[in-house]
C-alpha cells in the first residue's frame, strides 16, 4: 500500500509545478478558449493517472524481470550471452519507453510524415541496444567509461558532418528521451546485477555510467539514419 501512495505522490510532484505555471500563464498571457484549456486539464489528469499505473506496473512486473534476467545472465558467465541479451533488452525496453514514443510521434507530425514514428523508434531502439551491449563489454573487461564517452562523442561529431542539419536536433533529443521512466531503472538493474556477479560487491559503482552510454547510442543511430535518408 505504501508503494501505491509513494507512486501517486511522486507523479503529483512531477506534474503539478508545470501545470501551475501553465495555469498562471493561461490567465495572464495566453488566454486560450475555455474548452481548449479544459481539454488540457483532462489531459493532465489522464497523464497523471496513466503514469501512476505505469510506474506501479514497472515496479511490480517489469523491474523484477530486469533483475532476474540480469542475474540469470551473469550466472551463465558467457560473455557472448551477456552481450547478446544486453542488446536485445536495450531494444525491447526502448520500444516500450513512453518518452521515446511521444518524441517520435511529434517528429512524425512536424515532419509531415517524412520521418515516420516507427522508423525513428526502431533507430533509437537499435542505438540503445548496441550501447547497452557495449556497456556490458565495458563491465566485463573493465574499460574506463571516459574512453567510451570520448570515442562516442568523437563519432557523433564526425558523423554529424555528413547528415542533413534537420536530423541533428532530433538525434540529440532522442538521446535525451531514452533516459525515461522505463529504460533507466531497467538498464540500471541489469548493469548492477551483471557487475555485482562478475566482480563482487565492491564493483557496484560499475553499474553507473550505463545510462550515459545508453543515451549516446540513439544520437549516433539517428544521425546515421539521417545519412541514409540523404
Amino acid at each position, binding site marked *: 500500500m505504501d508503494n501505491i501512495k509513494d507512486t501517486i505522490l511522486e507523479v503529483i510532484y512531477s506534474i503539478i509545478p508545470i501545470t501551475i505555471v501553465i495555469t498562471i500563464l493561461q490567465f495572464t498571457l495566453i488566454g486560450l478558449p475555455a474548452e481548449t484549456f479544459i481539454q488540457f486539464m483532462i489531459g493532465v489528469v*489522464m497523464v497523471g493517472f496513466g503514469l501512476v499505473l505505469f510506474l506501479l506496473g514497472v515496479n511490480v512486473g517489469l523491474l523484477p524481470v530486469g533483475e532476474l534476467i540480469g542475474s540469470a545472465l551473469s550466472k551463465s558467465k558467457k560473455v557472448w550471452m551477456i552481450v547478446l541479451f544486453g542488446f536485445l533488452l536495450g*531494444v525491447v525496453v526502448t520500444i516500450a519507453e513512453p518518452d521515446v514514443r511521444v518524441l517520435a510521434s511529434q517528429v512524425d507530425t512536424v515532419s509531415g510524415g517524412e520521418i515516420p514514428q516507427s522508423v525513428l523508434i526502431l533507430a533509437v531502439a537499435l542505438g540503445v541496444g548496441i550501447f547497452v551491449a557495449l556497456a556490458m563489454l565495458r563491465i566485463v573487461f573493465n574499460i574506463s567509461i571516459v574512453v567510451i564517452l570520448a570515442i562516442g562523442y568523437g563519432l557523433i561529431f564526425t558523423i554529424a558532418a555528413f547528415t542533413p542539419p534537420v536530423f541533428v536536433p532530433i538525434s540529440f533529443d532522442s538521446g535525451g528521451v531514452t533516459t525515461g521512466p522505463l529504460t533507466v531503472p531497467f538498464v540500471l538493474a541489469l548493469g548492477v546485477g551483471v557487475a555485482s556477479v562478475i566482480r563482487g560487491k565492491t564493483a557496484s559503482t560499475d553499474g553507473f555510467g550505463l545510462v550515459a552510454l545508453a543515451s549516446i547510442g540513439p544520437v549516433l543511430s539517428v544521425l546515421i539514419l539521417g545519412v541514409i535518408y540523404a
Partner: protein
Amino acid sequence: MNLHIFEGFGATMEEVAIALLPLLLLFFVFQIFFLRLPKRKLLDIGVGFLLTFFGLSFFLQGVHIGFLPVGELMGERLGAMDHKWLLLPIGFFLGFFAIYAEPAVSVLIHQVDKASGGYIPEKVLLYTLSIGVGLAIVLAMIRILLGISLWYFVLPGYIIALILVRFSSKTFTSIAFDSGGVATGPMTATFILAMFVGIASVTEGRDPLLDGFGMVALVALAPILSVLTLGILFQRKEKAQDGKSKERAKTAHHDR
C-alpha cells in the same frame, strides 16, 4: 462543449500492445530456458504487465488529446506576443519548477550524497540543478528566437563536460553522466517540447523541425555540467580542509 477525450483510444491501445509485445516475448524465452519461475511469481509479473499496459495507454492518450495539441497552441500564442523577451523568464520558471519538485532529482541527490560522503549540501545541489535546467530552457528559447544552430550549444557543452571529467573522480563522472535523465522527464519531453514546436512554427524564418527540436538535448546537458562542477568544487574544499588539518597536526607536533 466539444471535447475529444477518448478519440483514437483504440488505436493507442493497439500501439501500446505492440510496444510491450517484444519485452513480453523476451521474458517468455527467459522463463522457458533459464528462469522457470513458480506460478505465483508469474502472476505478479502478469499483473505488472497489465498495469503497465493500461498505464501507458492512458498516458499516451492524455498526451495526444491534451499535451501535444494544447502545448503547441500555447507555444503559438506565446511566440506571437509583442514582447518576445517575456519568453525568457517564462522558460526559466518552467525549467526551474519542473526540476525543483521532480522525484528523480531526490534519487540523484541521495546518490551524490553517498558518493561525496555528505560534502555537497543537498540544498546547494537542488538549487544548482534547478537553476541549471532553467538556464538551459532560456538558452533553448534564445536559440529559437535568433535561429542559432544547435551545434553552438551542444559542442561547447560536451567539450566543457569532457574537460571537467579530467578533474573529477570516477564515481562522480558516472553519476554526472547518468544524471542527464533526471530533467528530461515525461513533462519536459511532451509538454515543453510541444510548446517549443509551437513557438518555432510562428516565429518568422524558423523551421519547426530544425529549430523546434533540440530543447531536450540542452536540458539533458544541464544536470551533467551541474553535478560535475559541484563535484570538483567540493572535492577542492575537502582537499583544502585535509591539507589544513594535516598542517595543523604538523605545527601541533612542532610545538610539542
